């Protein structure tokens, strides 16, 4: 399997403080990798370095020669003074054929919206338009930074299901940043838990039972669910100080727990 991006010893910061330090990261062709971490843990900073928007303070990033990235950024806002239809947006950065655009809009489920101004779409439609644009370059790697922000739970579940389907069809690697762990983790090959540095990394079931992960996200229903009841500034010395009651939950409580998780993140 070809290595798409390899990063060694990445550090980044603004002013005097380091947002990230000593981060090693890699992703191979066809992999699904999810980066999880609390707010301010440097997830978006890491993504911006990987796509080349931000230069690391230290460390090195190696990309596969000719690597095509499909990037869905966090919070993209279109200035209302810029008249841009969905179809025209898909021509950025390079013009895509009319047929290819129509087929892609069909695939992401917004074929009726081609001529609508981008600024007039709902949150879910908007993210699908961004996804369609990213996929039109036939990327080796699709990068999604908190792609379901502003969607309701049903919408984000549908969105992730769509990504899973598209990946099956296209074979593209997927790198996701998310805090909606219950939706994301089961589909991931590998999870990277980030909080200024890589806390732990591995298969979802390994990460979700790792003490570092639990210190960050608490313990949840069979570990694949994070509860955001705790304060985010963690310390590795005080593991397992909350959430023990949920360890004994039966598996059929999962959905109930997921709903709790969602309400927990919205506060």
């Amino acid at each position, binding site marked *: 399997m070809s290595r798409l991006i390899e990063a060694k010893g990445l550090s980044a910061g603004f002013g005097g403080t380091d947002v990230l330090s000593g981060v090693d990261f890699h992703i191979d062709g066809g992999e699904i990798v999810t980066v999880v971490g609390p707010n301010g843990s440097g997830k978006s900073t890491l993504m911006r370095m990987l796509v*080349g*928007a931000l230069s690391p303070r230290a460390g090195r990033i190696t990309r596969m020669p000719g690597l095509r*990235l499909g*990037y869905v950024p966090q919070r993209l806002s279109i*200035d209302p003074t810029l*008249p841009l239809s969905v179809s*025209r947006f898909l*021509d950025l*950065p390079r013009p895509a054929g009319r047929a290819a655009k129509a087929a892609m809009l069909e695939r992401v489920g917004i074929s009726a919206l081609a001529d609508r*101004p981008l600024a007039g779409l709902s949150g879910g439609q908007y993210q699908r338009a961004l996804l369609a644009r990213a996929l039109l370059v036939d990327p080796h790697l699709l990068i999604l930074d908190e792609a379901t922000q502003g969607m309701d739970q049903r919408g984000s579940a549908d969105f992730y299901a769509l990504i899973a389907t598209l990946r099956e069809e296209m074979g593209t690697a997927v790198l996701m940043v998310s805090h909606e762990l219950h939706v994301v983790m089961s589909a991931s090959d590998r999870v990277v838990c980030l909080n200024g540095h890589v806390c732990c990394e591995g298969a979802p079931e390994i990460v979700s039972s790792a003490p570092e992960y639990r210190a960050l996200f608490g313990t949840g229903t069979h570990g694949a669910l994070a509860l955001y009841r705790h304060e985010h500034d963690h310390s590795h010395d005080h593991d397992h100080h909350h959430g023990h009651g949920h360890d004994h939950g039966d598996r059929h409580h999962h959905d109930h727990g997921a709903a709790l998780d969602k309400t927990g993140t919205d506060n």
Partner: protein
Amino acid sequence: MSGLFSEFMIRAALAGLGVAVAAPFLGVFVVWRRMAYFGDATAHAAVMGVALSLMLHLPVYLGVAGVAVIMALSVAAMESGRPGLGADSLLGVLSHGALAIGLIAVSFLPGARLNLEAYLFGDILAVSWGDVGVIWGGAAAIIAVIGWRWRALLTATVNPDLAWSSGMNPDRDRRILTLALALLVALAIKVVGALLITALLVIPAAAARPFARSPEAMLGFGVAVGGVAALGGLGLSYGLDSPAGPSIVAVAVALFALGRMALVWRRVE
């Protein structure tokens, strides 16, 4: 009518058209990226450029373009590391600082002092064939550069990170835009003067916005508005014996207002 076609009017019309056609290529980005203050600061620095050219016996275009480039680049540099000031406040300081210092510098030059109004509001009726050549050459350069970088600039305007992820360099494209803006300031100083250059950038693009469904259409309508404003303003100036630069801007504003009224009318019907 014969006066309308006398040679100085033809030169004035050509000079006005050259600037008015090139300005919207930058004006649309000024509007989309909210850079109007940035245009002001660069244009106001032109007065310093005039003083400098006269002091050093350089062609005015050269001094103005040089100072405008320095101003534009330092504004861009300060914006990225501004210490606790909003971009608009910082640009307000730089823009009016450049104007004030430029006016003082000009006042020390007896010859320039007489012509101050020409540099502040333009003197399009006094342009030479050489000026027309410089303006059309510069306008062609601006149009070529923006046309060449159009897609990259558009992508970076939508979102710089999208541009980075597509292998573009939005920082470099921003510098290209900045340099083109400085060039336009140098071209426009004789046509509308330092105080009204931003008007030529913003007003045609803003007038075009409600009628445009695509970025290219907004540019096209903007060019049309600019061209009509240049010729109409010259006609107005000829008929009313009003100053030419402000007349051009006034016609552009009238077109903007007409467009807005047409929109309201359409909504009422």
